[in-house]
């Protein structure tokens, strides 16, 4: 493991995880414990401003985020972990922009000084929890913790936007795969999910039903087409939109989606043999129990390879190399 020397991180839960996405908070903390790293909640952290403050006034928006970075640095932590993609991108972007733009850096620090704080860009490394699990803990250590593999559970890994964009560097900006691999390590069957990095609509549910519900419908439709039992997400906004608005999508479009939306940490906890309640299964509005009941003790039987029809026209081989 290549975490901090003591295997600990400052933990920035963000507002969603205190209530609406409490399931994500609970499950993040228990899988961290199971994997042997520490999440130390940042003292007196404040809201990151979501996408709202940047729309009103950019300088206070950066200053709002920078207070959290300054507090992290003053606690002596070198890395801060955010499970919420929006918090993550705001923290990441503020640190990066303060480093890239001297004028912004100067003004943000002048604002911080009014609160007797200061922050030097680069002093805190901002990480998403998925990044920590995949790159610091690593797939081998995750595999070693699996006690109840999720055989036959078909999952669609949904990354959404902000974990990969703007360029945060730990996975592909358009077709990320780290969570796919993580789900395979847990024993689940990963379905292809072409819309895996498309937008869930963000706050558009509050502004335009026309825009938001169509974006949500597309995602649910795509995962359903590929016969997923559940969508697995890394962001509370994505979870809320796909879960809580699913009923409205069904009413508006005459669809019958019944797709449970789980956090990747909940799925990890289940694979680690934890009770569903320990990872807050049951907080989702679309019930996940029917999907979870599909998990079997035996791995899925691989379909037998068909013998090639020698009289058929020559076709390129579809078998993977290596």
């Amino acid at each position, binding site marked *: 493991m290549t975490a901090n020397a003591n295997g600990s991180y400052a933990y920035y839960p963000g507002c969603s995880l205190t209530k609406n996405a409490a399931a994500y908070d609970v499950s993040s903390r228990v899988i961290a414990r199971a994997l042997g790293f520490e999440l130390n909640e940042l003292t007196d952290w404040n*809201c990151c401003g979501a996408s709202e403050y940047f*729309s009103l006034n950019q300088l206070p928006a950066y200053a709002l985020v920078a207070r959290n970075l300054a507090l992290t640095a003053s606690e002596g932590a070198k890395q801060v972990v955010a499970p919420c993609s929006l918090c993550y991108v705001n923290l990441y972007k503020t640190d990066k922009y303060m480093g890239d733009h001297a004028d912004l850096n100067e003004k943000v620090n002048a604002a911080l000084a009014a609160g007797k704080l200061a922050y030097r860009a680069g002093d805190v490394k901002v990480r998403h929890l998925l990044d920590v699990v995949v790159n610091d803990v690593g797939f081998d250590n995750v595999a070693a913790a699996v006690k109840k593999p999720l055989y036959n559970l078909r999952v669609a890994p949904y990354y959404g*936007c902000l974990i990969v964009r703007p360029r945060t560097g730990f996975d592909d900006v358009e077709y990320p795969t780290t969570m796919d691999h993580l789900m395979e390590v847990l024993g689940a069957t990963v379905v292809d999910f072409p819309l895996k990095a498309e937008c869930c609509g963000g706050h558009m549910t509050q502004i335009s039903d026309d825009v938001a519900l169509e974006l949500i419908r597309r995602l649910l439709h795509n995962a359903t087409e590929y016969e997923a039992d559940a969508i697995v997400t890394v962001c509370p906004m994505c979870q809320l939109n796909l879960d*809580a608005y699913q009923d409205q999508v069904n009413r508006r479009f005459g669809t019958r989606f019944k797709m449970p939306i789980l956090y990747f940490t909940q799925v990890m906890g289940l694979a680690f043999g934890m009770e569903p309640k320990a990872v807050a299964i049951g*907080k989702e509005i679309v019930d996940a129990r029917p999907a979870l009941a599909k998990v079997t003790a035996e791995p899925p039987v691989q379909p037998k390879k068909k013998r090639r029809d020698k009289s058929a026209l020559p076709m390129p081989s579809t078998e993977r190399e290596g």
Partner: protein
Amino acid sequence: MTAQNGRRRFKHEVIDATPGGEQLTLCLQCGTCGGSCPSGADMDHTPRRIFAMIDADMKDEVLSSNTPWFCVSCYYCSVRCPQEIPITDLMYTLKQMAIREGRYEQRRASDFSETFIGYVESYGRAFEMGLATRYHLFHNPMKMVGMATGMGLSLLQKGRMSLTPERINNIEQLQAILNKAKQLSAGGA
């Protein structure tokens, strides 16, 4: 002042207010942004056209359009732009300018942001329940009925919505920082 400078005045205001905004001068009008935009179909003008309008100094038309408000901040345009223009950040700048100048006529989106931030400035934390009730009471009372019986009720029953806001301890410190930032922001972006 030359005619050229006068014509581009708005463009420079936009650029100056955006970290990395100077990339905008490199726009090729290729349209990759509009083609990548998940809400482009519902915008008055695609981002590409907005940039052409900025170049043509069409300040009123740009600031009164719904385009920046329908930006979902997905950053697809930003990562695909061959000229590395920070398009999402430019949309934030346009929203900010539209609010300051009172241009945007459908107030739904800007009121949502203002209500959200009102709670953050008072408590240091977001407050979904307060946001939903205050914002919808004003803009869409019928939606309140739906909230109370449908989705809102489900979230309450699942313990996913607080009835009271949380407050950080050192709210005075946060407010001092934000006030200073607002002061600096008023004296130039």
